[in-house]
């Protein structure tokens, strides 16, 4: 879980201070470009945690309807 603390794009205090009487174009998410370059990296990571039998898992994920 420690890894989840590493990225703090905006803290609450900063958010409350931001201006925009008229909304100004916001900076793009700082991670976006890195993330694009790192799609392969991302897939490698996901490969490592995906449930092992996709076919069986998807077939077995049956829900009752709700609201």
């Amino acid at each position, binding site marked *: 879980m420690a890894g989840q603390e590493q990225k703090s794009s905006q803290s609450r205090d900063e958010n409350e201070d931001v201006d925009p009487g008229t909304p100004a174009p916001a900076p793009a998410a700082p991670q976006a470009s890195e993330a694009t370059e790192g799609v392969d990296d*991302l897939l490698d990571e996901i490969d490592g945690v995906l449930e092992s039998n*996709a076919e069986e898992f998807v077939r077995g994920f049956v829900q009752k309807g709700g*609201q």
Partner: protein
Amino acid sequence: MPSSERGSEGLPVGGALRVMGSETEYGIHAPATPGANATYLSSQVIAAYAKLTRERLHASPGAGWDYTDETPLRDARGWSVRRNQAHPDLLTDLEPVLTAEGVALAHGPSELELDGDQEPALMNLVLGNGARLYVDHAHPEYSSPEVTNPLDAVLWDSAGDAVVLTAVRALSSDSERGPINLYKNNTDGKGASYGSHENYLVPRAVPFTDLVRGLTPFFVTRQLVCGAGRVGIGQDGRTPGYQVSQRADFFEAEVGLETTMRRPIINTRDEPHALADKYRRLHVIVGDANCSHVANYLKFGTTALVLSLIEAGAAPEIEVHEPVGAMHRLSHDTDLRETVRLLDGRRLTGLEVQWMYLEAAAKLAADAGVAAEHGGDGHTAMVLRLWERALTDLDADLDAAAGYVEWAAKRRVLEGYRARDGLDWNDARLGLIDIQWSDVRPERGLASRLIAKGSLERLVEDRDIARAAIDPPSDTRAWFRGKSIQRFPANVASASWDSVVFSPPGSYRLQRVPTREPLRGTRALTEPLFEGHKDIQGFLDALLGERHT
């Protein structure tokens, strides 16, 4: 600087502040026991959390979870106390009658006992953070405490994920049944859907027809910003492909009362859980459950802004031709070129409709002074800024949008797999990715992995989420509810959105405290009472006795 006008709720009007809350029905899956009864499994989640809470409270000195005097079951339904038994601050001039939907905290000791073979179904729990955790249909549902702004809505909605994760962990070691896993999504891809709802407090004086007219074009297009993405087209997902929204295909009507069949874009359930002649509770069922913080934030924030537009008579005057079909078509076109036809003959893309709403909301907020640098309401400016960023990126830079727009983020992963491994849309691995995206376990949930990695933007910190899973928001009646349960767990017989029922020690009489004003019962109003009276008797004497003075 115009000083912000305050509405009947007591919050500045014209912006994104409003009493609101979320409801999340989690998908539930016990892989080792296929075919297990989903309602039973759901009740195990509630019971596991109840047990953990009891253990935690036992661990704190003086805060026992003692149900020994609670038998037989005290069901709050149909029972009422004289109105002169409640604190004047909290008393309303309505006859205090418990609703049929009484939220029982205490079901008697036997129902909390998890040991032994007979594990009874625990269906209902009110938490110390003011939330409700219960079984709804065949899913565990977390209903957040009432909050006043979209950032807190995200925080206390995320707290629900943390709450159920705790239960999932506790249940994971059951050797017979195997683990019970939970998913923050809205469909199994085989025809079943379950909801994540939003609730907004709206002055009763706003005509419902205005809400329908103002909200429909907005809800038809809101998915482009807030959709969570879904593999498969159609209710049963039979047509291979990818679409913007988890929920869109399950909507079949424009306006209606139903929530489980023939679902309407505008739900007419009128259950204010507050002073009925003053407020209505707008029950929104059209949204996707969001793992992306920003998508979740914009879901609440932009909807709150649009409600302000409607209240001010300033919503864009457009009507969408055949909105149900339009909503489906927009969801199915991830290139975002699809248009909707307006009744005046114009054709607009979904994003163009969203821009109209954004521009109107920005103007109203500016006029009302709530989006100003100084003297604003502290939230509206950020909603407008992130909304504009989302529309700008969706127009021109989908890669940037994939950093926080949930359906775009999910699509990036899916397209990555398709490109790398040459998968068709009906490949089971893509279906698996869609489901596992929302697994509440952070080591398994793909959205959580992306947030941890920094490739899906974070708005609220884990430590704040953890705190919100324990503590109520300070600025609504949820504070009184949550603190009452935290401080006097053995003496709160039941609680609901609009009441807390105390069971004084040594007495069979219950004391019901109505909480029908959502902005009363706040920390500012009731903390002195809690601070001044550490024992239940003194607390109740002070709470109920003041009427005699």
